[in-house]
C-alpha cells in the first residue's frame, strides 16, 4: 500500500489540467486537455464540439438565401465575410456578375468587418496577456462599426446583409459620410493602442518567440490568414484569387518574419491600417447604380459544384457547394479558418509555459462558433 503511494508520488511530475470549457481565456467553449510538468506544457489536446449546431446539415434544407442567416452564426465576430463567401459561391455556380456598386458595398462592409473582428482579437488577446484596458478601447471602436452595420442592414452582429446576386438594400443617405468620419479617426486610435503595447517590454517579452511556427510548418498545417502571414508567407485570397473588386484597389499584404505571436500581432495591426486604406479607396470609387443583379425569384443553381473562398479576418473561409439543381444545396461544406488554425495549437505550445498557451490561443484568434459550426 505504502509503496504504491510512493510510486504515485514519484510519478506526480506530470499533471493533466482540463483547461476549459469554462475558462476565461478559451474564447468560448474550447476545452484543452493540457499535460503539464509543473508549468511546462508537455502536450495539448483540443476537444471541440461544445457549440456544434449542425450548420452544414441545416444548409441542406434551406433555400440559398435562407442559408445566409445561418452563416452569420458561424464566426459570429465576422458575419459579413461569412455571408460574402456563401453568396460568392452561389453566384459563381450560377454565373452571376453582381453590379459594381454591390461589389464595392461588399468590400466596404467586409473590410469594416475585418476591422471589427481584429478589434475583438486585439481586445481579448491583450486581456489574456494581462493588459485589461485595451479591451474597452477596442470595443468602443467596434461599436462604431456595428453602428454602421446597424444603419445599413438593421443588425449589429448577425448582419444577414447580402443576397445571392447583390445586396438587399442600398445605403442610407449619409452612410458614406459617417463611414468616412469613422475611418478618418480610426488610425489615430490604432496608434494609441500600439503605444500601449507594441514597444511595451512586458508585452514583447510575453509575445516574442512564443508560439513560433515556421513558414514550412504553417503551410503544412494548412494555416491561413494572419497565422500564416506572420510566418512570412505572402498569401492573401484577396490578392491571389481576387473576388468582388479587390483587384481594383491598392493595398499591401503585411507579413512577419519569425512566425511568433509578436509578428502575428504586428501583422494584424498593419492589416487594420490596410483595411482602412481599402475602405477609403472604395468610398472614393463607389459607383452609382443598382445593387442587385437580375436573379430569379427562386434561386436554383445549375447542377454542379464549386469551391469559393474569401479572406475572412481569421483566414481563408471557403464554401464547397454541390448543387443538384434544386432550390436547396445538396451539400454545402465550409472550410473554416479557425478549425484548421486551431489544429496547429499543440505544435505551437509544446514545451512552453501555461501562460504561453493562453497567449497562443489568443493569437490564433479562434471563434468556437466557426470551429464547431
Amino acid at each position, binding site marked *: 500500500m505504502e509503496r504504491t503511494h510512493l510510486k504515485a508520488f514519484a510519478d506526480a511530475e506530470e499533471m493533466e489540467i482540463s483547461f476549459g470549457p469554462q475558462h476565461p481565456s478559451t474564447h468560448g467553449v474550447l476545452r484543452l486537455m493540457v499535460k503539464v510538468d509543473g508549468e511546462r506544457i508537455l502536450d495539448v489536446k483540443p476537444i471541440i464540439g461544445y457549440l456544434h449546431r449542425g450548420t452544414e446539415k441545416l444548409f441542406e434544407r434551406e433555400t440559398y*438565401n435562407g442559408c445566409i442567416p445561418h452563416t452569420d452564426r458561424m464566426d459570429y465576430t465576422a458575419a459579413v465575410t461569412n455571408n460574402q463567401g456563401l453568396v460568392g459561391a452561389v453566384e459563381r455556380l450560377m454565373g452571376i456578375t453582381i453590379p459594381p456598386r454591390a461589389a464595392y458595398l461588399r468590400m466596404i462592409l467586409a473590410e469594416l468587418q475585418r476591422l471589427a473582428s481584429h478589434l475583438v482579437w486585439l481586445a481579448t488577446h491583450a486581456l489574456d496577456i494581462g493588459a485589461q*484596458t485595451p479591451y474597452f478601447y477596442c470595443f468602443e471602436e467596434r461599436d462604431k462599426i456595428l453602428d454602421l452595420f446597424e444603419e445599413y442592414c438593421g*443588425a449589429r452582429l448577425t448582419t444577414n446583409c447580402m443576397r445571392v446576386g447583390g445586396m438587399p*438594400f442600398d445605403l442610407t443617405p449619409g452612410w458614406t459620410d459617417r463611414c468616412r468620419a469613422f475611418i478618418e479617426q480610426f488610425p489615430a486610435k490604432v496608434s494609441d493602442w500600439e503605444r500601449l503595447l507594441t514597444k511595451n517590454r512586458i508585452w514583447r517579452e510575453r509575445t516574442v518567440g512564443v508560439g513560433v511556427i515556421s513558414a514550412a510548418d504553417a503551410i503544412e498545417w494548412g494555416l491561413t490568414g494572419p497565422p500564416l502571414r506572420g510566418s512570412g508567407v505572402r498569401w492573401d485570397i484577396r490578392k491571389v484569387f481576387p473576388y468582388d473588386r479587390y483587384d481594383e484597389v491598392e493595398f499591401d499584404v503585411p507579413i512577419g518574419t519569425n512566425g511568433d505571436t509578436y509578428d502575428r500581432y504586428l501583422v494584424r495591426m498593419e492589416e487594420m491600417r490596410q483595411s482602412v486604406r481599402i475602405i477609403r479607396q472604395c468610398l472614393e470609387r463607389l459607383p452609382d447604380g443598382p445593387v442587385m443583379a437580375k436573379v430569379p425569384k427562386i434561386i436554383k443553381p445549375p447542377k454542379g459544384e464549386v469551391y469559393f473562398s474569401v479572406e475572412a479576418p481569421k483566414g481563408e473561409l471557403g464554401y464547397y457547394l454541390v448543387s443538384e439543381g434544386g432550390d436547396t444545396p445538396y451539400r454545402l461544406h465550409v472550410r473554416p479558418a479557425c478549425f484548421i488554425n486551431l489544429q496547429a495549437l499543440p505544435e505551437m505550445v509544446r514545451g512552453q509555459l501555461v501562460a504561453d498557451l493562453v497567449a497562443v490561443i489568443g493569437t490564433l484568434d479562434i471563434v468556437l462558433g466557426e470551429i464547431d459550426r
Partner: protein
Amino acid sequence: MSWWDKILAFIPLELVQGLGVTGKYLFRKKVTVQYPEQRLEPKDRFRGMFGFSEERCIVCHNCAKACPIDIIHITDHFEESVVDGKKRKKKVLDRYDIDVKRCMFCGLCEEACPTKPVAIWLTTKTYETAAYERNERLYFDKVRLQTWDGVLPFPGVKAPAEGGMPEDPKAEKKAAGGEGA
C-alpha cells in the same frame, strides 16, 4: 548599440508612455449609456420585434416559406361571398403565429412580403423583448402581433397597438436600388 544606448534601453520609458495613454483616456468624456434612464434609439432599419397588419396581409404564405427556421405558422380558409351578384372566393386568415423565442431576426419574412407597404415588418425599433416565461410571453398570435405593447417606443415610432407602422423604408429602397430579390 553602444553601452550608453543599452543603459537607456534599460529604462522603461515605453511603460511610462503606456501610462500616459491610459492617463489621457482617464479624462476623456465617457461613452457609457446609462441604460434604464438613457436609451439608444435604434437605427431606422433596425430589426426588432414584429409588427403585423391583418388588413394588408393577402395570406400568400411567402413569409412562412422564406423563414429559414419555420417559425411562422399560418392557417387560412376560403370564404365565399356574393358581391354584385358574383360569387367571390376570398382567403381568410385563421392563424398567424410567430414563435418569437426561436426567431433569429434575419428579416427574410419582411423581404418576402409582396404587399406594399409590407404586412409583416421588424422595423419597430424595439429591443426590450425579455420575458420571464418564454413559451407564453414569446409566442405571438395574430392578435398579439398587432396589439403588443409594454415596450417603450421612441419618438416618431408607432407600435402596432397604436394602430400604425412607420414609413415603409423598403419602398424607397426598392425605388432607389432597382429591382429587389
